């Protein structure tokens, strides 16, 4: 009789911890321009290779390469760059305001700006995003969303359009195609599929776009959403933002080791792309591909956006406790803003001077907006929406028991 081998539990670990250095060779990378671009109407199974490789357009010199290089007007690129810089400046400013206790909490999207902003360029008016808390770029890339109003939400003040009910960042903007952000994870993905199904049931032309992080793909709702999207060929894009970290949990604990999140999609029959999330051009091209597929009744696309969470998870988090401090600087896909700027300069459509002027202008705009928002109150000075309003919107019309409870509170 031979002794049976003792079983061992596998425990995935990141390659770097504080004090050490991350070995990013765990990331499967492709060269810019290397990956083929199939027609958006191919069978989902034909995208299997694209779920493993990485769609990239910008090379190290900032040149656009290969079949995914989109035909995109420089105005649009400048618009994208502007939105990315605006988002980064806005985040930095709000981060400070949180430290000054003017808001209770904040979540920046440092390093991930290209994802939401390139995607927004590929969507149309009337489409609906079902975001997480890190897609503020969808709103900041629009001219019709007031910075003052966004900051009023963050400060939960008297002008907060959400009446002080939601944590900062959990915005809702129906008119901007931005679904109410839950705060519970993954719930929005099957909801987006339902919204897309409704659009198809009505013979409409609008599509939905769902957002989720690598960590929450472990939730059942994600897998349920993929099944429903496949079954009904729903006109939806399912975006998995793989920023390597879910608070302190490395993406391998969500199941990213030895596979990719994009491959989840191919397994259930959904076209899937793995995309350089820090490459604005690749992001725009992939989003366009997925949007065209959805709009022509070829069904859903899963896009895995490979990126790196440059900052802490939130203002309540301290990443120096669990990952090397220089990770982001060493991340092989670089900084999305620097890369698009380099490209625009390389094609003669931008300059350092223009960039500096734009940055100054945006900074002034954000400072002015913050000042105005603060004039309506901050969480610190207690000028928040009245307590009476918490009894509203629980139901369409206030039922008797809530009327009585409001009286009890004396408001």
């Amino acid at each position, binding site marked *: 009789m031979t002794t049976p081998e003792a079983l061992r539990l596998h425990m995935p670990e990141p390659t770097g911890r504080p004090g050490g250095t991350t070995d990013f060779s765990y990331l499967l990378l492709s060269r810019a321009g290397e990956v083929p671009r199939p027609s958006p109407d191919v069978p989902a199974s034909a995208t299997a290779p694209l779920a493993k490789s990485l769609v990239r357009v910008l090379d190290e010199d900032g040149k656009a390469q290969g079949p995914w290089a989109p035909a995109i007007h420089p105005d649009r690129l400048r618009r994208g760059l502007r939105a990315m810089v605006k988002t980064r400046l806005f985040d930095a400013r709000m981060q400070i305001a949180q430290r000054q206790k003017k808001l209770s909490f904040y979540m920046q999207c440092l390093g991930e700006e290209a994802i939401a902003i390139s995607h927004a360029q590929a969507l149309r008016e009337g489409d*609906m995003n*079902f975001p997480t808390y890190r897609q503020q770029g969808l709103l900041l890339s629009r001219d019709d969303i007031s910075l003052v109003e966004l900051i009023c939400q963050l400060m939960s003040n008297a002008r907060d*359009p*959400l*009446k002080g*009910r*939601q944590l900062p960042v*959990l915005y*809702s*903007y*129906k008119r901007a195609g931005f*679904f*109410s952000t*839950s705060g*519970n994870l993954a*719930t929005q993905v*099957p*909801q*987006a*599929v*339902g*919204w*897309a*199904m*409704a*659009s*198809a*049931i*009505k013979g409409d032309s609008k599509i*939905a776009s769902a957002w989720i992080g690598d960590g929450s793909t472990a939730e*059942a*709702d994600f897998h*349920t*959403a993929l*099944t*429903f999207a496949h*079954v009904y060929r729903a006109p939806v894009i399912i975006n998995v933002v793989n920023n390597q970290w879910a608070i302190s949990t490395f993406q391998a604990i969500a199941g990213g080791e030895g596979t990719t999140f994009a491959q989840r999609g191919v397994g259930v029959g959904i076209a899937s792309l793995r995309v350089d999330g820090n490459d604005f051009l690749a992001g725009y091209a992939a989003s366009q591909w997925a949007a065209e597929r959805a709009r022509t009744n070829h069904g859903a696309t899963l896009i895995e956006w490979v990126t790196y969470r440059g900052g802490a998870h939130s203002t309540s988090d301290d990443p120096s406790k669990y990952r090397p401090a220089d990770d982001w600087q060493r991340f092989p896909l670089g900084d999305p803003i620097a890369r698009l700027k380099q490209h625009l300069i390389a094609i003669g459509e931008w300059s350092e001077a223009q960039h500096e002027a734009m940055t100054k202008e945006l900074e002034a705009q954000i400072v002015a907006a913050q000042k105005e928002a603060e004039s309506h109150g901050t969480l610190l000075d207690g000028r928040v929406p009245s307590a009476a309003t918490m009894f509203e*919107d*629980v*139901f*369409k019309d206030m*039922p*008797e*028991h809530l009327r009585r409870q409001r009286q009890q509170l004396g408001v």
Partner: protein
Amino acid sequence: MTMVQALRSGLDVMMGRDENVVVYGEDVGYFGGVFRVTEGLQAKYGKTRCFDAPISESGIVATALGMAAYGLEPVVEIQFADYFYPAMDQIVSEVARLRFRSAGDFSAPMVIRMPCGGGIYGGQTHSQSPEAVFAHICGIRTVMPSNPYDAKGLLIASIECEDPVIFLEPKRLYNGPFDGRHDQPVVPWSRHDMGKVPEGYYKVPLTSAAVFRPGKAVTVLTYGTMVWVSERAAIDTGIDAEIIDLRSIWPLDLETIVNSVKKTGRCVVVHEATRTGGFGAELAALVQEQCFYHLEAPIERVAGWDTPYPHAQEWAYFPGPARVGAALKRAVEA
């Protein structure tokens, strides 16, 4: 009409009136549902108005939320109330709170139908009555009819309601007014007054209880199957009980309850669900808050035992007419 036919008629009427009404769930499409409620609707309205869903209650509710946010009016079926638990997060954190958290920017009016209750030898996974779970959630309405007329009228009112509604269907009442005497045949709805259901559109308002049986000696607060069991208990004991059929569990019609208890001075709360933390506890608390100085006896609670719903011991578990009758006697004799 049976309750099944009445519910089908309610869906049919609303699908005919409003092309935004869509109906789906497990086995709901081609086959027409395991209890046949949606039979014929796919043939009549097409596959995009009435269809089968994957076996995923969370997916069914989540997609319904998305559809409602788009502007449709989904009426989804959870095959048994016992199966709704995977959808709990979507119901509690999403459907119920969408209007509140977005300050009215979005809302999710929908109806989530589910057969509930025991008496069919369904064991612990086909017999539960989870109404108290729903009543505890802020932002949804919970409804449970006790007869075909109310079932159709409440269903139409629920579909038209701008709040999400949990619509619980006591499956033991689908074919007739079961009064707890499991060893006797049930009178079919076709031979019962409450089986007379108009073909067309009508509503039974939400948040309105019915005085099912007027009486002077004691008030019985109940709903669903236990309305009929309570009536049987009143007949068997000869006690002049006033039976209030809540119909809407939450928000509820407190006025009708309070008026009755103030009149009789005695109150028995009856439900099939387990006792502890059951909705009866809320009813008892409301009655003592509102009617304490009119009460002449302690409030009685009759409920399922605090055990999982058993299979072979169904009738020992089920709070039948004998248990209700004993509570009525205690209440009037105290």
